[in-house]
């Protein structure tokens, strides 16, 4: 579309039937189909290889197990613990990550000086540090919050750093030619252009945060969904094990969608929000 005078004011344009199908309706059709497919393959595998329910229970058994788990005494407590650890740890990671990313992004020499440390702390398998944190911070929530914060910190920090550096020189020129001050340049330009990067970091960070919480709970303590997995495993209760895994997946989904919702709220103008349906036209 390159004709100069044509586009209508604020028009979304009329989408043809096929476009509508590809854009808006597709997920509503494809997602259930996909779900049915997964369940079908699941059942087929069990039937074909005659798998014991101790190894792979039937889908309906897992659903039954979920109901059981959710209704069981103490489940809400476990869920609450995992959720609290994840959210507090993520919040800490967000504040520190954005703060440090912004500082390192602006002060070049500091970033260069700290680069070996940054690279080293990225390369180290952080999950391997979990036992150490349990030794340091005990079996309670604190050690898990620390783990969550560290895991979520790096993607957020690195993306924020990148974001601060990615302000377009041309847009900077505009602000400079208007003799804009530091604060105005930050508020009108840098803040807005960094935000998409921060959200990209948050989307990765929130996933890491849940991993951190669950792994922390595997290794120490007697609370949380990770602990529930270990208990189910020790009892050889495959049904419950699967149920908790599905619940964890749902929790992950919910938190990820929360981040996406925030993104839509904060950067509605950005390409990643506009989505496929509009940007492909």
């Amino acid at each position, binding site marked *: 579309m390159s004709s*100069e005078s044509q586009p209508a004011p604020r028009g979304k344009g009329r989408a043809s039937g096929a476009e509508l199908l590809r854009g808006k309706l597709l997920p509503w059709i494809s997602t259930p189909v996909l779900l049915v497919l997964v369940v079908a393959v699941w059942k087929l595998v069990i039937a074909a290889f005659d798998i014991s329910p101790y190894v792979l229970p039937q889908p309906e058994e897992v659903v039954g197990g979920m109901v059981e788990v959710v209704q069981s005494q103490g489940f809400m407590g476990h869920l609450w613990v995992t959720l609290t650890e994840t959210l507090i740890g993520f919040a800490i990671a967000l504040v520190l990550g954005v703060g440090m990313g912004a500082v390192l992004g602006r002060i070049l020499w500091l970033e260069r000086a700290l680069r070996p440390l940054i690279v080293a702390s990225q390369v180290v398998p952080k999950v391997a540090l979990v036992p150490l944190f349990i030794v340091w911070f005990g079996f309670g929530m604190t050690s898990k919050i620390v783990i969550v914060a560290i895991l979520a910190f790096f993607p957020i920090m690195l993306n924020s750093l990148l974001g601060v550096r990615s302000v377009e020189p041309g847009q900077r020129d505009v602000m400079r030619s208007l003799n804009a001050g530091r604060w105005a340049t930050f508020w009108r330009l840098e803040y807005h252009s960094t935000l998409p990067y921060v959200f990209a970091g948050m989307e990765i960070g929130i996933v890491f945060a849940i991993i951190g919480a669950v792994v922390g709970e595997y290794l120490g303590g007697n609370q949380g969904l990770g602990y529930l997995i270990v208990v189910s495993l020790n009892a050889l209760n495959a049904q419950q094990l699967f149920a908790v895994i599905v619940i964890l997946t749902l929790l992950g989904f919910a938190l990820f969608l929360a981040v996406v919702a925030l993104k839509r709220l904060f950067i509605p103008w950005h390409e990643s929000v506009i989505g496929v349906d509009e940007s492909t036209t």
Partner: protein
Amino acid sequence: MRETAAAGQGVVDGRAPSGDHFIEADRITMRYTTRRSSTLALDNVTLSVAPKEFVALVGQSGCGKTTMLRILAGLIRPTEGTIRIGGQHLWHGSRRDEQTLRMLGLVFQDANLFPWYTVEDNIGLPLRLRGASKREWRTRAGELSELVQLAGFERSYPRELSGGMRQRVAIARAMSYNPEILLMDEPFGALDALTRDRMNLELQSITAATGATVAFVTHSITEAVFLADRVVLLTPRPGRIRSITPAKFERPRTLELQSDPAFQDTVRELRRQLYEDEGQDR
């Protein structure tokens, strides 16, 4: 018609023949120095623009025309030489004169709009930075949308606009605070030929309506001759003024002017000089 001042030897004086100088660049030299090398981008360029005059800077890529415009805009400080605007020095040491900067409106090759702002917000940005009230800047943004023929698009986002429309928003933004001077760096360079012709006509009527003084960088000689009162041709590396060519065609100009023999002669002569510098045939 005035004779073309040819370079040949010595330094061509690019001052306005009327003797009335609004923008004065005096013996501007710009040297970029890196650890490995030193490039002379502009060498002793003296140029002035009279009030309400339209001056076009042309030359091959790398001849320093953009550098020259950025120097006039106060975005970079020349290694040597002075810039005065309305008699006021643009630079005081390493600081730029605030009052003088307010007289300048800039348009770049990329529209450089802020994608998080609507058309209206983008146009109103300079006024908001100056603390104008919401009513004030919105009224002005509305007026300017009309002027650049974007009425009805005030609430659109830049991504919803075509390239030519974005560039018009950028022009409106540059004009929001009524600058006496418009500095334009290949503003239509990224547009298709048809849109470009239309934008040239629009720019002409905008400058006529506002009485702005314009310095305009382009690599299109036709565009330069069509828009300008004087065409300044720069030599490449180091950038020096090769020639000053007056383009005294009657205004308002229409696209038919481009088939006028006198117009074509001017274009041909400038093109000849440009290719001569390049040391190539055609």
